[in-house]
């Protein structure tokens, strides 16, 4: 357990050091700033479409670091050394999942606040959006890690990872963006169900991919 925490700390520190934390934030803010230019400064339209737009931005922001999650550690032998020390690939995947989420989930949720102001979202919508992101970002992190592990041994894996991850993110997008107009709260529950599945299977899927990629 302490070894897992040490691994999480290392990965999170590496994300921090390489500027990985500001990248999703800047990305989200840029999208939020550009969106009014694209659709026009109509406040009613912006506040209606802005929440969904931020969900798409969050989804894309989660994919920014996918080529740095597994491949560098695989190529430098860090994964081999961890396995040699008796850590299972699944445990490594869990540590990397937590570190990846720490690297973009909380910063993204903070960045949503100024972005929501730019898009003229109202108070209740912001709260629902933040709640949805709290549930949804771990699932986005899981998705990113899974495709990162699957494509770690390929060249120019970033683009392929995006192509693999985006279709799998559709349910998250439907229920995440859907929760913004939904008063009953059922969309959030379905979002949580999707997130649970993704977070649940990712350690096994990513672990299996890492094991299969070892040569």
């Amino acid at each position, binding site marked *: 357990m302490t070894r897992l925490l040490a691994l999480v700390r290392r990965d999170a520190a590496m994300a921090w*050091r390489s500027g990985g934390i500001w990248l999703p934030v800047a990305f989200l803010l840029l999208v939020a700033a550009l969106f009014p230019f694209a659709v026009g400064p109509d406040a009613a339209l912006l506040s209606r479409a802005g929440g969904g737009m931020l969900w798409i931005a969050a989804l894309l922001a989660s994919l920014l670091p996918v080529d740095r999650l597994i491949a560098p550690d695989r190529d*430098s032998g860090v994964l*081999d*050394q961890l396995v040699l020390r008796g850590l299972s690939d699944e445990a490594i995947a869990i540590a990397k999942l937590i570190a990846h989420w720490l690297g973009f989930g909380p910063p993204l949720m903070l960045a949503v606040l100024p972005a929501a102001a730019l898009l003229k979202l109202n108070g209740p919508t912001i709260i629902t959006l933040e709640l949805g992101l709290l549930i949804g970002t771990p699932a986005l992190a899981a998705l990113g890690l899974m495709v990162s592990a699957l494509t770690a041994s390929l060249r120019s894996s970033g683009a392929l990872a995006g192509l693999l991850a985006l279709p799998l993110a559709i349910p998250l997008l439907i229920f995440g963006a859907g929760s913004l107009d939904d008063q009953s709260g059922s969309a959030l529950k379905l979002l949580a169900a999707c997130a649970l599945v993704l977070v649940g299977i990712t350690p096994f899927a990513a672990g299996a991919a890492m094991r299969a990629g070892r040569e």
Partner: protein
Amino acid sequence: MSDARLTLSGVACVRGGRMLLTGIDLDLRAGDSVVLRGPNGTGKSSLIRAVAGLLPVYAGTVERHGAMALADEMLALDMQASLAGALAFWTKLDGQPDDQLHGAMAALRLASLADVPVRMLSTGQRKRAVLARVMASGAPIWLLDEPANGLDTLSLGLLDKVMARHLDQGGIILAASHQPLPLPRARDIDIGLYVPDAEADAA
């Protein structure tokens, strides 16, 4: 450390659909060392990785008693971190005291490089850093893949001392090298010409 043991019986390795090695039998106890020899591509590294558990063993069994440490061509140190910081990550993970790391760095003359980022190190310095990682791990079984590659004469002397001390303390060394290693008591196994003991007896 003295109850460490590494036993291979009838080990075979397959890489890319090609049978590289068959019927490798080894029994290493505390203080034993084996050097795998042979030209490039004969499967020395594959055998080391199979013993480390990083490659599936096609046939036979590998039994390990005691922790293992692996030094291969991959650095496994964070390029951005300082040398001491990158090595300390592994010693912490291994639950070893800091003194162990200081001792290993001093033994391999890396103490003066402690604050240098790993990416600035030269080839030989990186190789020594990998050896320091192995040494600081406190593991009794050392798996060294071409440990002498890229080392100058002075560093070879350091490697010599470090390996001798490890064996004296009851460690085990399984090394693969195409150049001579200063392991006087080591059993040499020529992988290219390997004949299992039983067949050799029968012949």
